[in-house]
């Protein structure tokens, strides 16, 4: 059972139990981070960078330690996301829109927060059950791997284990901090 599996297990359990797993995650973070510590800029999101998505209003977390616009593909948490941003869809970075249910399992990325310099473990839970949101399409692939390693792959519709498996949008939830070396 790899560290990845442990993380997935804990993430899933958290839906019911919400236990702390900080120590495990910091250890894992060092494993995962690797070359991903400095996010790159895939062409796939170039268009979206030019002033955000048209017809979508900007947002702010209101917290200087969580900087950027959560409706922008550039927002720091989205370094391995693939899908429609729930922030544009009636949800938030960590909450699903009305009428959808959060997938209990998903893929995991590690993103560096430009404000505090820390690398955070981000869980990209899909929200499921409403129509596709189709707003704010964003694809970034730092630490993404092919489906042969499912828990690190954003090519999968993670609406599994939900009442309705239809994909609506994706969240980016902080589940821990990784040690930076």
């Amino acid at each position, binding site marked *: 059972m790899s560290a*990845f*599996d442990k993380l*997935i*297990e804990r993430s*899933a*359990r*958290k*839906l*019911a139990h*919400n236990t*702390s797993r*900080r120590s495990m995650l910091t250890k894992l973070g060092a494993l995962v981070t690797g070359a991903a510590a400095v996010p790159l800029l895939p062409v796939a999101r170039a268009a979206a960078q030019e002033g955000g*998505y*048209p*017809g*979508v*209003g*900007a947002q*702010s*977390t*209101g*917290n200087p*330690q*969580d*900087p*950027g616009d959560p409706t922008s593909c550039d927002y720091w948490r989205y370094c391995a996301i693939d899908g*429609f941003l729930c922030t*544009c*869809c*009636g*949800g938030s970075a*960590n*909450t*699903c*829109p*009305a*009428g*959808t*249910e*959060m997938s*209990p*399992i998903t893929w995991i990325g590690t993103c560096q*927060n*430009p404000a*505090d310099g820390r690398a*955070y473990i981000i869980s990209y839970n899909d929200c499921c*059950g*409403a*129509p596709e*949101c*189709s*707003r*704010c399409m964003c694809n970034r692939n730092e630490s993404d791997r092919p489906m042969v*390693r*499912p828990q690190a792959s954003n090519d999968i519709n993670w609406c*599994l*284990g*939900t*009442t309705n498996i239809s994909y609506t949008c994706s969240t980016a939830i902080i*589940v821990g901090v990784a040690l930076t070396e």
Partner: protein
Amino acid sequence: MKKWQSISGSTAMLIVLGLGACSQDGPKSTEATPQDVKQVEEPAQAVSYPTSLGEEEMGNSNVLAVPYAPSWAIIHDANFHSMIDGRFIVFDSTAKSHAYKGSMHGGTVGGIDVANDGTIYIATMYHSRGISGERTDIIAIHDPVNLEKTGEIIVPAKRGSNMPFKNGFRLSGDDSLAFNYNFTPAASISVIDIAAQKFLKEIPIPGCTLAYPMGAKGFASLCGDGTMMGVGLDAGGNVTGETRSEKFNNIDDDSMFMKPVRFGDVLYFPTFTGNIQPIDLSGDTPKPLPKWSLVSEAERAANWRPGGWQLIAGDNAGVFYILMHADGGEGTHKNGGPEVWVFDTKTQKRIDRIELKTWGVSVAVVGDSLIVTNAEMQLDIYDVANKRQYSHTFGDGIFTPFVVYTGQGQ
């Protein structure tokens, strides 16, 4: 089979979790109140924060406050390039941030109405294999708090397959019945009992089209011979009386659009050449009132005409908004227009003329917002309370939003 034993890869673990760790009843939070967006400065260098950001809770979904605020609207995106995947989208027309609230599936060119208790009804059609297989027509029932589908009423698989018209599906005046327009090409109305959630009767309306609620339980329908018929119903969906107006619709030379704006019991139908035909539905028989003109003699000479898809919309005070274009003629009635003209039905006078930022094809009035579906299929919002000036645009993720309803389904 021993080879399988050695495969203890990562997926094997996931399987266990997938089966055992699903929580479908996570805590619910009410949506964060939209606040003025103040862009947080991003430091060029990481500054010192003594603690890291905290872990966040998983499994939460928003719920919506009911009744919906007056500024909330329901977009019908019939999604014409993928019509089997239509959507109804709830959004706050005045919000410049956090405007999108959620969505419900629209099936193929659905219709929608909202009861006074807030329950949302969507009439639509599905095939078991997307575009083929068994056809099932339903009235889907959605909870306005979480937009979830809570049930469905199966109705005859005859719903008209056409461009979206508000009057293809309507609740009766007292919310007790629903009317679903059928076209096979035989025309009829399926009557549904809302409280019992069941189909009651199919009422043939040969030669007539769509259903305009009349009185508590009746409806009227526009007919190909230029008249309007009236149908009275009892609680069981039985016909208690049928009436027929005089002829008033000159389909050849000055056809009525089939999209009225409604104030009380009077429907105001625009016509192709720029007149308004009011119809009084307060009695048992639809009664045409005197026609009046939207255009002056000079404007008529310049062929200023109404046009667009949902080309007319009204507020709650007898004022309506209508898309107009110059140089109109035969075949321009769906063109939309560069201006919206504003009329007061009491004085039958134009009270404003709005030059649109972008050419419009449909309009809606929701609270203090004039919502214009523009030629690029995005929604431009004009603030009625601020000199009807352009305010902002809602877009992305909407494809063909030809009809926008109020939060009350009007």
